[in-house]
């Protein structure tokens, strides 16, 4: 999703670089949050073993998939709700 160049002059160097960097920042943050949450949900907190058990591994895979699905659904719903409420949800 890029908002560059909508009816105004071509974006400056700084703007272009910032846009790409920002996009990656968003992705990296999402990754970091997912790791934190799925670790908490799936791993044995007593750390009795140093290796991921099969169950834990599968849990992590599923957690990641569900995380993305929830992300998408929430994004869609938030957009709908925001529009329904006349464009602002902070009021």
């Amino acid at each position, binding site marked *: 999703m890029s908002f560059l160049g909508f009816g105004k002059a071509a974006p400056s160097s700084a703007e272009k670089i910032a846009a790409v960097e920002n996009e990656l920042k968003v992705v990296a943050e999402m990754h970091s949050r997912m790791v934190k949450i799925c670790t908490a949900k799936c791993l044995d907190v007593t*750390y009795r073993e140093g290796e991921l058990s099969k169950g834990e591994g599968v849990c992590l895979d599923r957690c990641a*998939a569900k995380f993305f699905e929830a992300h998408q659904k929430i994004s869609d719903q938030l957009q709908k709700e925001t529009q329904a409420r006349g464009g602002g949800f902070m009021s």
Partner: protein
Amino acid sequence: MPCLQRADTSAARLTPAESRELDQRLQKRQVKEFMNVFGNLVDNCFSACVDDFTSKALSGRENGCIARCVVKSMSTQTRLGERFGELNAAMTAEMQRR
């Protein structure tokens, strides 16, 4: 943590000079990201493993727990990194299709 690569998802077209500037920034970000992962690791493993304050030295049990925690956490990072890459690519493709 995913290597901060530039997938061609951005509409921006960069000159070589801009590209270099971006790469420099990404490198800095990579370092910051690593420190973040490290911090989370310490917080997580300490919280999970250390709960005996009758001594100021880590006990054998706590040391073992921490070591296992580190290994497990790194395996987790790797696995989730792979899943994330796959899912993110799929999501990006889906968004572009819409």
